[in-house]
């Protein structure tokens, strides 16, 4: 029994209904992915000024000239990609490590102040980022004087409360009996964490790693603030400067946009399950 009636013995009605639904869903899906489609097909156009090109929905020619143009436009294009990769990877690794450790402690180890510290962190999660942006900028640029460094790009993102929360939620569901057994067998807390908690939490850690990588690959705001030299910018900030430098070169802009999105598309299609699962972790009570 479900929301939809089964229509026993009336296949015609069922087929009509499903066809109608699929048509609606497909139309909406087309509207949703149209910008991405438009971006990709336009990137294969010739790198000519906007006035000389036509905005076709289907490519009239296939050329990689615009990609070449994009990489030759700035000597730092590869560097931008590398910077994004370095920052996103580092932040991903530290988040998985620190959030899993803290999540384990908050869910399974009894110590004084545990509930209080965790509550303060949760409350802080609701504070809009606009509140911390000015003091963080002052801290990094005016006090530490480390603008235009990897440290500045990475430091504030080393671990997020959201990831700690995810880890804690997941690890709370691991039965205590397993941990007690390990203790009796002579494991210390670190061994329990490393040999039991981490292997059992693989799924949530994978989800966390992927979403953290995605967030940091796509992040625009913080790198914009703490980098002003071309060689330390990430691809998202580089793309923005490209946009203003060449407002009329349409195809190379689309090539740049495609390049900045491509790694995430590849990750998404190969690890789709984790992406889609990740959305519901923490949002839906299982």
């Amino acid at each position, binding site marked *: *029994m479900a929301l939809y009636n089964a229509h026993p013995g009336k296949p015609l009605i069922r087929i009509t209904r499903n066809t109608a639904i699929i048509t609606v869903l497909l139309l909406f899906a087309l509207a949703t992915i149209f910008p*991405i489609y438009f971006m990709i097909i336009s990137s294969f156009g010739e790198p000519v000024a906007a006035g000389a090109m036509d905005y076709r929905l289907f490519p009239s020619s296939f050329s990689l000239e615009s990609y070449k143009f994009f990489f030759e436009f700035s000597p730092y294009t590869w560097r931008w990609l590398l910077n994004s990769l370095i920052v996103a990877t580092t932040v991903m690794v530290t988040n998985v490590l620190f959030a899993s*450790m*803290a999540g384990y402690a908050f869910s399974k180890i009894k110590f004084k102040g545990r509930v209080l510290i965790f509550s303060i962190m949760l409350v802080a999660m609701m504070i809009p980022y606009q509140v911390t942006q000015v*003091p963080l*900028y*002052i801290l990094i640029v005016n006090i530490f004087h480390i603008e235009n460094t990897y440290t500045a790009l990475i430091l504030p993102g080393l671990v997020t409360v959201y990831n700690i929360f995810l880890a804690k939620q997941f690890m709370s569901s691991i039965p205590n009996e397993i941990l007690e057994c390990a203790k009796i067998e002579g494991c210390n807390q670190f061994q329990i964490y490393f040999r039991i908690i981490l292997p059992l939490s693989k799924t949530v850690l994978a989800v966390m790693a992927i979403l953290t990588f995605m967030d940091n690959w*796509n992040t625009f705001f913080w790198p914009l603030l703490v980098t002003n030299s071309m060689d330390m910018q990430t691809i998202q900030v580089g793309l923005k400067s490209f946009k203003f430098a060449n407002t009329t070169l349409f195809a190379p802009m689309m090539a740049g946009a495609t390049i900045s999105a491509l790694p995430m598309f590849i990750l998404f299609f190969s690890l789709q399950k984790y992406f889609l699962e990740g959305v519901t972790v923490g949002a*839906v009570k299982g």
Partner: protein
Amino acid sequence: MTEYAKPIKRRKINSDAIWGYAFIAAALLIFLMFTAYPVVSALIISFQEYKPVGSTFIGFDNYTETFKDSLFWKAIVNTIVYTLLTVPVSLFLSFAVSILILPFKKRMQTAFKAVYYLPAVASGVALSVVWLWIYDPMPEGIFNKLTSFFGLGTHNWLGSSAYAMFSLVLMAWLSSHGTSIIIYLAALLGIDGSYYEAAELDGANFFQKLRYIVVPCLKPTTLFLLVTGVIGSFQVFQNAYLMTGGGPDNATTMVGLLIFNNAFKYFEFGKAAAQSLILAAIIAGISVIQFKFLGKDVEY
């Protein structure tokens, strides 16, 4: 709350506690340095005329100035308009799509989920670059071609104060519901089949089941998406910054962009800090109201 492993000996508790502190040490240190300290610092800066060396304490001046600033109120109104236009529509679209996806087999559900989620994977900058070209004011622009095909004429979508806000809203309608669809679908699949069974025995049709079973069962999910959606919308910055720069004539200046401009364009850190705290208070207030009015019979 979960139960905890019962300590065998008293000495064990102490060593466990030390392990506990060791495990949270890194996270706590980072939290204190990059979240707690900045929040306290923001509060202090909001009462100062900030200078890198030798800030002066000026009391509530930053706050009173903000409240007298007509641009601040315009930004608040813009943000509210944007939120009212995007969040409910996005929720409704997500709900409708997830209901429509429901009757299909798992593989088809996953395929649709993937397609709808795809824009969320692309970076905001890449998408805004694309949308800038979709909204190209030239008659050859994709969107202008579409509107003139339907006899609506061509317009300067992002460059005229009459259409700029609408253009940002339309962009949000078409790209920001992937997450909500997946969450709604998960909640829909979690509804106990026996409810439907009972309703069917009473002769309920599809719409009655929708009204009396699905809507109440999804209320916690809707509340969650509503609250997070409103919080997100009030902090919106990137699209306005990249697409319109807040213009024309401040028609798309949102609070997030205003704070950014005050801080990093005019370097009025004190004013920006005061405004960010007002924003935090507004968000907290709205969240409380939402929980109070909509959360009465929500069980967690």
